[in-house]
């Protein structure tokens, strides 16, 4: 790999990031498999609950061939745990709207969902080192190299995870309630025009979203620098990430925004093709296929975030020349590999 000198356009990093992700389909398929694996046990549990409730009832006929909303309500009225999350929102693009809204409105979720999500985050933390290492090297690292890098960075990223938990915890536990339970009611207390209240809410969403994005971009570059430069101190990596973002703020922010645009495009595309209720049988599997393509699309975007940020950092690696160039053998840092190549 050639280390590029001088300004490296964020648009080039964006394209490079996409190419790096596309050149490593195993990574994409791997995280998709991980997503499926995490969701399958809960899906099986819910399927059992639905099957038990439907039993041998004829209500299953209408539920299988379309929507039996009465049955759906009957089920949710008595459901607990995973079952309590079942409802109309599972239909088509409603799922995306429901989840996005719940995310930005900081809605509480059942403990079983939180548990699954925690496990999912844990696995992502484990894989993050391997994934970024793979994109930083931009060459096949094989499974051994991938998981070895994952293992090396797992505990470092766990330490970084503490920082992230504190930062995101502050945002969701303090900033969000302050914005939406204190500021928003105060600003809208005597408002009699809903449109104005909506605009105020949108503005607060922007404030919250900006804060989230700021944390997100900071921790992304912390991870990138930790991997590329083989950093052990996560505080140092976070500080270095912040320095990089500050020195390359136009490119870093621009890249983040085009990545966000990519995310929006994937959502919009899914909005066009998201399947409705459909029937049991082949249309059910077709709907699942479309759903999984959407999940793959979302995962691809997430990986493009990391890959393009890695590319940008490597493209603008101002101090690469100061890094010693030891013998290139894994697990040396991708920077070292780059210098030697």
């Amino acid at each position, binding site marked *: 790999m050639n280390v590029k000198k001088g300004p490296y356009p964020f648009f080039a990093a964006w394209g490079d990031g996409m190419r790096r992700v596309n050149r490593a389909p195993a990574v994409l398929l791997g995280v998709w498999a991980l997503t499926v694996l995490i969701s399958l046990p809960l*899906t099986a549990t819910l399927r059992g609950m*639905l099957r038990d*409730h439907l039993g041998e009832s*004829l209500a299953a006929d209408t539920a299988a061939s379309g929507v039996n909303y009465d049955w759906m309500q009957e089920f949710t009225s008595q459901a607990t745990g995973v079952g309590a999350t079942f409802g109309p929102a599972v*239909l088509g693009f409603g799922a995306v709207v429901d*989840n996005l809204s719940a995310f930005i409105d900081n809605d509480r979720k059942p403990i079983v969902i939180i548990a699954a999500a925690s496990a999912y985050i844990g696995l992502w933390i484990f894989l993050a080192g391997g994934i970024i290492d793979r994109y930083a090297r931009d060459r096949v690292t094989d499974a051994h190299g991938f998981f070895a890098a994952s293992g090396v960075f797992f505990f470092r990223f766990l330490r970084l995870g503490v920082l992230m938990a504190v930062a995101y915890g502050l945002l969701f536990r303090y900033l969000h309630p302050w914005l939406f339970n204190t500021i928003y009611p105060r600003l809208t207390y005597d408002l*009699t*025009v809903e449109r104005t209240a909506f605009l105020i809410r949108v503005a607060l969403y922007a404030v919250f979203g900006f804060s989230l994005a700021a944390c997100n971009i900071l921790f992304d570059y912390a991870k990138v620098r930790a991997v590329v430069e083989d950093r052990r101190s996560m505080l140092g990596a976070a500080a270095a990430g912040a320095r990089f973002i500050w020195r390359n703020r136009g490119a870093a922010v621009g890249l983040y925004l085009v990545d966000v645009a990519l995310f929006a495009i994937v959502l919009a595309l899914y909005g066009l093709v998201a399947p409705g209720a459909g029937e049991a049988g082949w249309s059910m599997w077709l709907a699942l296929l479309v759903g999984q393509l959407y999940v793959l699309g979302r995962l691809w975007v997430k990986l493009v975030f990391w890959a393009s940020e890695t590319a940008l950092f490597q493209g603008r690696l101002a101090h690469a020349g100061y890094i010693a160039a030891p013998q290139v053998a894994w697990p040396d840092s991708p920077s070292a590999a780059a210098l030697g190549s």
Partner: protein
Amino acid sequence: MAAVSVIASGASVASAQTAGTAVTGALDPPRSPRNASYSIDARLDPATRIITGSEVIAWRNITTKTVNDLQFHLYWNAWRNDRSTWLREAALGGSKYLNRRDADRGRIDITSVVLVAASRIDLTAARHFIQPDDGNRDDETVMAVPLPRPVAPGGSVDVEVKWTAHVPRTWARTGAIGNFFFIAQWFPKLGVLQDEGWNCHQFHAGTEFFSDYGVYDVRLTIPNGWPVGGTGVERERRDNSDGTTTDRYYQEDVHDFAWTTSPDYLERTARFENPPLPPVDMRLLIQPEHAAQAGRHFDAVRNTLKFYGEWFGAYPYGHITIVDPAYQSDADGMEYPTLFTAGTRWLVLPRVLTPESVTIHEAGHQWWYGMVGSNEFEDGLLDEGFNTFSTARVEAIYRPNNLALRYFGGFIPYVFRDIALSREIDRNRMGLYRAMPKSDLTSAPSYTFFPSRAARNAMTYAKTALWLNTLERRIGWETLQRIMSTYFSRWQFKHPKPHDFFDIVTEVARRDLGWYFDQVYRSSNVFDYGVQDLTSTAENGRFLSSAVVRRYGEAIFPVDVLVTFANGDRVTEHWDGRDRWKAYTYDRPSRVVSAVVDPNRVLLLDINYTNNSRTLAPRGREAATKWSLKWMVWLQDQLLSWAFFA
């Protein structure tokens, strides 16, 4: 500054002025006893939110009881302090209304009570608060005034009452926010004298109102240029030298008066014409951000006037005012004579009944509450339940009618096009009833219901609508329509009780349905029938089949059982539904395929319909797989949201 305009397109749209018939608020001949008439002068100071009022009540004793005092409702005192019965109950029900700052509270202070006779007798010093329902000495929502002389049956008195009131931030759909004022239950109002004595309940968090019919002649002084809407017809408008305007509103044969004013209102008018029903001038006071929805409001009211008029009886007043309340005013969805508040959102979508649903419902209250003046304190089912049932019947004409949920702080609606809402289940609010079917006994006085909105609505709105719809499915709409129109015609401008309706059911249907009302009104038992077992075994080329049906609930209702065989044969059994279970056995050349209890779903109150059927070719696994896979994509999307933190 209000903009005033008139919708000028459409053959059926016209302003009240061009209607051709003078709508004056007068009804001839009188429809009601008019035994409690009010002449009111009130002035609103928007800056201080103070109303100064004076009223003369002409009251006549139309009972067989001699009375020694007068009892008045002072509803706004419910928010005077946290110890009122209303606020204690609201706290019990988990209300959002608690912990208000003092400036947002409401109150009404009586400054004088004078008996107007040959000489004026000041009764102010004798007034005192009473608490007939719960003895709560901190509750000041009912005032008693002893009379110097008893009023015998047929006798009458004129009483002058003066008061000042502080308008609360909207509470229970009355009050102010910004420069929006919706003023209801705002003047000292007499209770209803009955043969048993005064029916003058304290204000409760879970109930509404009750009063006698009369003539209302009201003069409202408000800032110049502020549009006003009120019960009745505006007869006069006079600009005063102090920058105010006095509007005079007049209406005969109503039992309440509410009004609203705000400089922001846009005014629209239209006309309902559907001979032989009498025409009705419609006036809409709408928020500017909802201006594009005026047509949907008018169409909803037209449908209400048409269908309620054809089904139950004509709307006689000739005019109706629709108020679109301000955002956050909490004044939406409330009924008053000849005027009601609808309620909509800035973003609305086709296929979804916002604003139609609430508009139809509140317009429909002109029948069930306005003209049939049941006691809402005690018999909430007669207004809310009957009206929910009637509303659902009108809503059924709207196709498509899809489920929509609101996201992002409730601002953004999302329509689920695969989910069509049904009249029988969704519009009758089965979900509410199913959630708490035993929360109270419907026959208990409504004000004693557990004071949470969900519990109250489950009984008064949902259960009643469901049992009326069940009755319709059992005896037919034609019969039920005759029952309800007879009930309307016999009890309009009077105060019926539930047994009056039940008597008419027996009379018109020509059968005793007392057993049914014992189940649905005098009991909180639930209905739940089901198929417990279904078998079929081959024997000598024939099949021995059996279906075991069971009554899981305590309530009893006769139901059909439909048994279907593989060769297409169908057998319908009639089960009286009394025993805990019943087995049907068959020896036929074809095996049984399925059994369904209540296949036509007559009994809408059955809280678990999924167990009503059983088949030997079940598709439960298929359906469970399909829906769990959809849920899996939802879960994966949810997980991807969380992956943001990784």
